[in-house]
């Protein structure tokens, strides 16, 4: 009798377990509509550290640079130290280092002569003052050297004091042509600005009514290190200088990266998207599940009522190149399906997924979110999913009220970087003057001298980079949800 009862219990347990397993399997079953994933437009593979190439160091030999090596205040004289360190930095990022001097022309120089760049005589050529190439800064000529070796890294030390005539017409074209080639080959341009003590004369300042003037009363003035090469090497140079000189005085230092591709990575492909991107707080919906499908598509599965606001947030530092001009516009390409059936079995057998004719229904906004570890704030973008379903944009209610309850929805969202930003122009705004401002500026007897046409130059560089910019897929996500009451 007892054995019979045990048998009965065992059979009941077995039946229950089998039925439960089937129910469980069905609830976890994946049924998605047919769609093609957008092809990622970026697939950055980090270069091997052992792939070292040549480094070219170009030093501006114009007379206006002399004031950096003859300083009035030794405490803020970083120029000499930076020039000394550049040799070491160049060796760390490349296998061979070549030195060049430029003014009106570019001339190859020996290492020993390059070391003289910390001495005033480098800029005056005491042995041959007649033929000394120190009257002009032809940045276009310097940049043209980047065609010598396409794999090399170029470090250009200059005051970037560029006259207007060099930024218009044929000269501008001469500047843009090599830049185009540089950016086409996937290289970037890093501009490091360093405010330095100065004791010398600045030449070629345009004045109203034509002609140029000189100015000698400045005791501070920025110089610049332009690094043209792989982003990795640019950041190495930047990081080394930052660590060595600018841990405490960030005001005397500026950095910007000009690149035709300010996107580091596709977050979905590199599996950087997780459940917290959609549900930042602990307010996770019922039946929530997160997984990657189709090898690199993050899928959020959940049940939700019509009150929930779906906000997908990604931190900018996870996909935008640090120090670059950023992104000024994003495009959201999305597709929404709905199904009157919610169970996978019925969806698959009756083929109930219906593609909606709603094209752009999500919006984006730049936001600032608090960092988890400290009081810092992080720039991010928020994608308000399905936001445009709300007929009245001012309405604060969830857009889900415009979807039908009792239906299952599948939403695929592709987020593209659509237009590059212009942050780098703003970064250097404080240190720049235009031709029109120059006369008034020197009349004000400034102690800290600004750089002529700096913003204009950065704008030219940005324009060249932006012409090469192609919309880049940042992330793709999919939402599979049942809409309940």
């Amino acid at each position, binding site marked *: 009798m007892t054995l019979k009862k045990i048998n009965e219990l065992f059979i009941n347990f077995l039946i229950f377990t089998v039925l439960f397993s089937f129910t469980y399997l069905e609830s976890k079953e994946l049924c998605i509509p047919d769609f093609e994933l957008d092809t990622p437009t970026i697939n950055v593979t980090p270069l091997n550290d052992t792939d070292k190439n040549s480094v070219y160091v170009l030093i501006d030999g114009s007379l206006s640079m002399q004031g950096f090596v003859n300083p009035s205040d030794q405490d803020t004289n970083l120029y000499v130290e930076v020039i000394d360190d550049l040799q070491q930095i160049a060796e760390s990022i490349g296998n061979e280092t070549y030195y060049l001097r430029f003014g009106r022309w570019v001339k190859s120089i020996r290492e020993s002569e390059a070391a003289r760049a910390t001495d005033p005589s480098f800029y005056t050529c005491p042995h041959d003052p007649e033929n000394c190439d120190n009257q002009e800064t032809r940045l276009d000529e310097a940049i043209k050297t980047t065609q010598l070796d396409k794999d090399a890294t170029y470090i250009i030390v200059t005051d970037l004091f560029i006259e207007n005539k060099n930024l218009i017409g044929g000269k501008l074209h001469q500047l843009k042509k090599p830049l185009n080639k540089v950016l086409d080959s996937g290289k970037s341009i890093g501009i490091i600005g360093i405010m330095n003590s100065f004791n010398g004369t600045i030449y070629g300042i345009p004045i109203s009514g034509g002609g140029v003037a000189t100015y000698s009363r400045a005791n501070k003035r920025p110089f610049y290190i332009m690094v043209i090469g792989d982003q990795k090497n640019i950041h190495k140079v930047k990081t080394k200088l930052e660590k060595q000189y600018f841990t405490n005085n960030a005001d005397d230092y500026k950095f910007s990266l000009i690149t035709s591709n300010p996107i580091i990575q596709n977050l979905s492909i590199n599996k950087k998207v997780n459940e917290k991107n959609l549900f930042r707080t602990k307010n996770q919906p019922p039946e929530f599940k997160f997984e990657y499908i189709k090898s690199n598509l993050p899928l959020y599965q959940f049940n939700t009522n019509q009150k929930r606001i779906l906000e997908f947030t990604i931190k900018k530092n996870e996909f935008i190149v640090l120090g670059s001009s950023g992104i000024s516009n994003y495009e959201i390409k999305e597709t929404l399906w709905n199904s*009157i059936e919610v169970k996978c079995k019925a969806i698959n057998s009756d083929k109930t997924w219906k593609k909606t*004719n709603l094209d752009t229904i999500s919006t984006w906004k730049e936001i600032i979110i608090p960092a988890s570890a400290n009081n810092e704030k992080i720039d991010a973008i928020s994608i308000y999913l399905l936001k445009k379903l709300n007929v009245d944009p001012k309405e604060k209610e969830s857009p889900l009220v415009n979807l039908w*309850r009792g239906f299952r929805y599948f939403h695929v969202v592709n987020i593209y970087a659509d237009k590059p930003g212009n942050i780098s122009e703003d970064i250097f705004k404080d240190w720049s003057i235009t031709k029109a401002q120059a006369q008034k500026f020197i009349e004000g007897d400034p102690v800290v001298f600004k750089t002529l046409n700096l913003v204009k130059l950065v704008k030219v560089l940005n324009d060249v980079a932006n012409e090469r910019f192609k919309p880049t897929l940042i992330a793709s996500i999919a939402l599979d949800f049942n809409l309940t009451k």
Partner: protein
Amino acid sequence: MLRIFKSLTYSIFGLMSLGWLSVIFIIFMFVGPEPNRLLDFFENNLIVDVRKYGQEFIYLAKSLYILMGTMNIVLLAIALIMSLAWSALSHRLNIDSPGKAKIYAIHWLIYTGVMLAIIVAITFYFTTSTRYNAAQFLSNGGITIILFSQTIYYFLIYYIAVIVGTARFARSSVLFANKLPGNFL
């Protein structure tokens, strides 16, 4: 008592004069959607544009038909109960002198007002509450059409039923009921 039963019978006949339409409509609703003029009318006049959601109305119509069928059963039942109740109660009105029946016109108006309010409330409940998912397919225009048509239709059923079902001595209390021939009931 016999008069009351007679009254109720007349009232039921009055209900049936138009109520058969409601019964047929309810049957159609529970049979389910078929591609016909009724479905087209629903699609063109009562519901939101489901095509922007990639759906075809015929696949969504089943639940809406059930909603409409259920609502009409309830409304028909209300019209039936209210009209029969008035017909029966009209025999109990204290009308002991000529002209007194007219005083009860106020009672009838209030009673009819309550019945109309119940019909409107029921229609609102079915077409706007979240209890029935199918209600979400109805457009605002559709809800208005349903509200007006159902109210007018069930009022007419009720009105015909009470005209013919009200006790003869109380007919003056019901609008136009005294126009019936004197030998009617």
